[in-house]
């Protein structure tokens, strides 16, 4: 399933919706979107991952970038991650800095 990413910004939140497969080939699009969210200066980045069927380390690297670019005060949430995607996030220990939410 091809990867797609979209972002909408409202008030203090950038909502990033991901679908398909996020690997090293598709990660630059996610990275660009994270950069836009960082530039918007929001306090919350809400990643909707309900339709994200696969995520490799390249996707995780964009989350590291987001945290390093935006600082610890910005809340980053990943909502609706499928079991394997959530497991990958935990496997890398990222769940200590990125909040996984079921919604």
């Amino acid at each position: 399933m091809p990867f797609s990413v979209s972002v909408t910004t409202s008030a203090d939140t950038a909502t990033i919706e991901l679908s398909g497969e996020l690997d090293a080939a598709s990660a630059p699009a996610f990275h660009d979107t994270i950069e836009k969210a960082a530039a918007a200066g929001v306090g919350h980045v809400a990643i909707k991952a309900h339709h994200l069927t696969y995520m490799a380390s390249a996707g995780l690297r964009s989350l590291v970038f987001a945290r390093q670019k935006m600082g610890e005060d910005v809340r980053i949430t990943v909502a609706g991650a499928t079991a394997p995607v959530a497991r990958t996030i935990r496997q890398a220990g990222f769940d200590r800095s990125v909040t996984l939410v079921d919604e």
Partner: protein
Amino acid sequence: MQLNALCLPATLASLDEIACYVLDLAGQAGLPDEPSYRLRLAADELATNVVMHGYRESPGELRIVGGMDEDTVWIRMEDDAPRFDPGANRVPPQTQLPLAQRTIGGLGIHLALTSLDDFSHSYADDHNSSTLVIRRHDHDDRPDDRCGDDPTPK
């Protein structure tokens, strides 16, 4: 039983074909979704590593063959990049540090090796050869945080 080998250019554009090959093998072996995902993740990460850091995005070739026996499903990946043993060069990520203080390198190899049930690497005749193994049976629930697991031979 062994599938036909795949010979691909070492580029990121080949990752989709590698995923299809691995998932087809997993399907033929009757692997459940969770170990199938782990095998695909490991193959994807190790292939990406060869493309980005082995060949350094210069032209090269990736050769992949997979098969199964009674107890395991396996993938063998070969390349002609400089010698690199992912197991020996593994740097566990600093999982206790906040992301803001983390260095990024090594994450893909960490994910690959902690996703597999067994991994081995050899280097001969100017070829790297990595073997990725997943057990076909006895898939207990694996802990979510497998940072301490290490499938590489001691």
